[in-house]
């Protein structure tokens, strides 16, 4: 092995990487947050009595879940200008990831809603709970409890997957690495450093969600 490693290259650019990591969190955080609204609407549509609604929501979920994120990103990236909408790569990245995330989250939400048996609401009401109490203790908390671990892992998956948006030059962590790589050609060292940052973030969020799950929803360890 004659290769000489230059670890000082990624170290010198650490501020840019940390800024990129923040941008990655911003993109994936927004995608999950907005995606959740789509997901709730979509889950309700899939459980509705109207067949047309069910079919549209079902098609959306299946199409997104069975095609690669990279292709979806290209589709939005090239598609929006074709219909006369010009947005920055960063916005396009958020839109594409939101659409992607909405489909995955909708399955999680649907499972959460379905986990509450109808009789439980009636049981709560017959025990003399107010409708608000029924919603708070019988519907909301148990649903959140079911939904929390998979939602947290979905957030981590989105965060890791968001590295793909570097391909349309949206400025986030991977893009920061590619930028430095094009100046220094130290591909291995740079991407190794970036991988460590991603790994740290995923571990921190995994731990945080486990802690919250335990504290707030009284879950056992290792749900993720």
């Amino acid at each position, binding site marked *: 092995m004659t290769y000489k490693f230059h670890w000082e290259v990624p170290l010198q650019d650490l501020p840019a990487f940390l800024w990129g990591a923040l941008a990655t969190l911003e993109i994936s955080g927004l995608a999950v947050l907005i995606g959740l609204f789509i997901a709730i609407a979509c889950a309700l549509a899939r459980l509705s009595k109207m067949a047309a609604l069910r079919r549209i929501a079902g098609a959306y979920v299946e199409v997104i879940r069975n095609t690669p994120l990279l292709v979806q990103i290209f589709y939005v990236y090239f*598609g929006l200008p074709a219909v006369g909408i010009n947005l920055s790569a960063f916005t396009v990245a958020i839109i594409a990831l939101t659409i992607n995330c909405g489909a995955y989250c909708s399955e999680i939400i649907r499972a959460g809603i379905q986990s509450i048996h109808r009789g439980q609401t009636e049981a709560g009401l017959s025990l003399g709970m107010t409708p608000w109490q029924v919603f708070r203790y019988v519907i909301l908390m148990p649903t959140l409890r079911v939904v929390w671990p998979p939602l947290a892992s979905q957030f981590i998956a989105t965060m890791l997957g968001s590295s793909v948006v570097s391909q349309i030059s949206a400025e986030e962590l*991977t893009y920061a690495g590619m930028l430095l790589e094009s100046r220094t050609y130290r*591909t291995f060292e740079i991407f190794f450093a970036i991988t460590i940052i991603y790994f740290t973030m995923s*571990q921190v969020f995994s731990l945080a969600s486990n802690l919250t799950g335990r504290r707030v929803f009284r879950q056992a360890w290792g749900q993720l």
Partner: protein
Amino acid sequence: MPEIFTAFTYKDVLFLLQGALVTIALCAMAISCGLPFALVIGLMRTAKRLRFLRWPAAVYVEIFRGTPLLMQLFIAYFGLSIIGLNLPRFVAVSMPLILYTGAYMGEFVRAGIEATHRGQREAGLSLGMTQYQLLRYVVAPTAVRVMIPPSVGFLVQLVKGTSLAYVVGYIELTRAGYIVSQSTYATMLVFTLVGAIYFGICYPLSLASQRLEFRLRRHA
């Protein structure tokens, strides 16, 4: 219009289908080499007597599940050339996919092995079965049944994952689509086609995975 652009013809469709074949080949490579690897990881993670085998496998799984596949591709692809290995591109691109498969499927193997109830093991032992017989006739049948639905689901993830070989310039379905879209300018048409091909590969797998899971639950 300058002549560098060509109209979108059936030849481009053929080119895309060729790309799809490469995508499938990458998946086949990742699964066939990743599965034995996953077995080793799963067995290491459930080791009883050789406890020290557990943590290297756990670290391996955590690393590959906790970092972007894109980064794994970059590092393996460029790392291989750094340690002086000059592999054919197909192999170099498959390498990270194999390691990725090993980590994910390793977890399914572990879940499968752990699905055997303790009482079943003890029953086997008290019947005088040897360790090998126990593994072969008690643990393996349950393990395989539990493993199959998520593994088929993982295939979908793998097919989608191969699209990332795009970034190192390897011509699979997504890269093929990109090339055609740049030369014909029929961008939307091309990416719709590319998406449709991926969907055609993945959707049956998704359905199969759901069915298998349903059947497993009904029997459980």
